């Protein structure tokens, strides 16, 4: 491994380079790529939990936490800076993730998914109903923040947020890779195959999962903050169950086996939705649904898996 770049890492590097360069030629791609990167960060969190064999159907709650952190700052304090927003979004979602995590890591599989869903639906109904604080279903506008005290024109800003998202995405991608390769990450993976053995080794499975869960909540929050800045709005929809479903969808689409799957999936998902909504406004959901079915039935390891399968067959594997 050392001294040689794995093909998947090469693909990841090409992807990040492409998202840095391509939008310079097509202006509207700046926002598209920024969204892909920001959502990819959230999905990284899902991929992380997938390593432990757990699926959260309520992860949108952290996404919404991050987004509303930025929104509340704008509404009650005013002004703001991208870095402050991202940092605060990360902090609030980490704290929230820790609180929820203490409850949910006691459960596995469907019960884990269900309890996450339950928590996220409570948050969603609160955001929707606390009209006087949250503006209800319409959400709160997020005014364009500055960066390092500079403020930007709209044309410049879309690139600023793109490159901020890119840097955060690269950091998150690298960080998650390192985490998964670390002893803690191996323990997380061990949970999927044999949790009991983990306990025999003297590790607390709950603690291992809790660490993974909090990191994943942190990533969800950061991604949510970025999306709210890109969209300039935070709405309760950010925390609805369909949003959580979408994140899991993207993770499976990209492939849960590798951190890069998060970005591959997000790119595919956003592009299909973007172009389908533009050209086939009546049937974009249908198209996404069919894409998902095809992936699940014929390429269960996602887009990443496709490449690996191709690579294996070329090397004369099975």
């Amino acid at each position, binding site marked *: 491994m050392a001294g040689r770049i794995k093909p998947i890492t090469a693909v990841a590097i090409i992807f990040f380079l492409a998202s840095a360069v391509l939008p310079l030629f097509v202006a509207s791609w700046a926002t598209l790529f920024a969204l892909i990167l920001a959502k990819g960060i959230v999905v990284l969190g899902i991929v992380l939990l*997938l390593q432990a064999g757990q*699926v959260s159907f309520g992860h949108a709650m952290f996404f919404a936490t991050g987004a509303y952190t930025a929104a509340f700052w704008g509404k009650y304090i005013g002004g703001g800076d991208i870095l402050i927003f991202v940092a605060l979004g990360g902090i609030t979602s980490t704290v929230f993730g820790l609180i929820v995590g203490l*409850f949910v890591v*006691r*459960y596995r*599989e*469907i*019960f884990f*998914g*269900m*309890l996450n*869903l*339950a*928590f996220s*639906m*409570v948050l*969603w*109904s*609160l955001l*929707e*109903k606390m009209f006087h604080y949250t503006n209800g279903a319409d959400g709160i506008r997020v005014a364009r923040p500055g960066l390092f005290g500079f403020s930007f024109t709209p044309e410049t800003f879309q690139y600023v947020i793109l490159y901020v998202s890119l840097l955060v995405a690269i950091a998150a991608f690298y960080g998650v890779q390192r985490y998964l390769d670390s002893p803690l990450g191996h323990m997380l993976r061990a949970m999927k195959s044999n949790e009991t053995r983990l306990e025999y080794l003297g590790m607390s499975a709950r603690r291992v999962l809790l660490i993974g869960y909090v990191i994943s909540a942190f990533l969800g929050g950061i991604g949510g903050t970025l999306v709210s800045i890109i969209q300039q709005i935070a709405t309760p929809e950010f925390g609805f*169950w*369909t949003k959580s*479903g979408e994140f*899991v*969808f993207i993770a*499976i689409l990209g492939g849960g086996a590798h951190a890069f799957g998060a970005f591959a999936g997000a790119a595919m998902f956003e592009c299909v939705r973007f172009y389908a909504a533009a050209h086939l406004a*009546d*049937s*974009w*959901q*249908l198209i*996404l*649904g*069919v894409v*998902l*079915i095809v992936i*699940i*039935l014929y390429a*269960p390891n996602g887009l990443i898996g496709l490449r690996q399968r191709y690579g294996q067959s070329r090397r004369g594997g099975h």
Partner: protein
Amino acid sequence: MNSTLAILAVLDGISYAALVFLVSVGLSLIFGVLRVVNVAHGSLYAFGAYLAATFSLVIAQVSPWLTYPALLVASIVIGVVCGGFIERFLLRPLYGRDDVLQLLITFAAFMIMDNLQRLIWGVQPIFAAEPLKLLPNISVFGVNYTSYQVILLPGVAVATLFGLRYFLRKTLAGAVILAVTEDREASTAIGIDAQRVYSITFIIGASLAALGGALASPTTSLVPGMGADMIVLSFAVAATAGLGQIEGTALTALMIGLTRAFVIYLQPEFEVLVPYLLMVLVLLVRPFGLFGAVQVRKI
């Protein structure tokens, strides 16, 4: 709140609970046997409602009383056609694979059905109130209720509850379903076709969702997106009860229906929050649900 209002709230709660029960029990049944959380359940509910409305708008011109059988026929058609399709072509290839994939493929089915519904029935609200109008109103403390909502719906729900109990506990087909649920390998060994049991259960569950939709169709406008709300509500009910618990689902639906009605009378702002808050509280204390037992499957 005086006793008059309390009685009104109870009536409202019961009629709401009846509909919620019908949809949730199908979800619960499917999970109990197939171990699949069917996200497309809400879409089956919506399709049932739309097809029932289509049928009853046509048949009402012959005789309005024929709309009742039309509701039933519509739900069976949806259960067999859509339910059968989802089970045969989407779920069957995935049995034995990751739970997540099974769940996600029903999510894909949900997206597709949501879209198809718009393409088939359009976006304008559809309303077919014939069955509701045929039955007289009844007056309780000077407040009018439709007997469709306070008598017929709860009646169907109770009949479904006891029908399912009887079917599972007293008939051979029911015994076979229970056997497969308890131990798939052993039952396959003694010659039970587990694949077929899965199909039949899924179709029954799907028909129940469609029946819920069909029965709701006379009381509500059918609009795009009606399925997405129903799925999470019925999921909350089924999970609070304990997935796979039929009687438990009935009691939980009643509990949520009544709480919701009282909340609307007393603190309407908290209406949406009720089922989810209840779900969190129950799952925190009893992750297997109010009526679920650890590791023991019971349907």
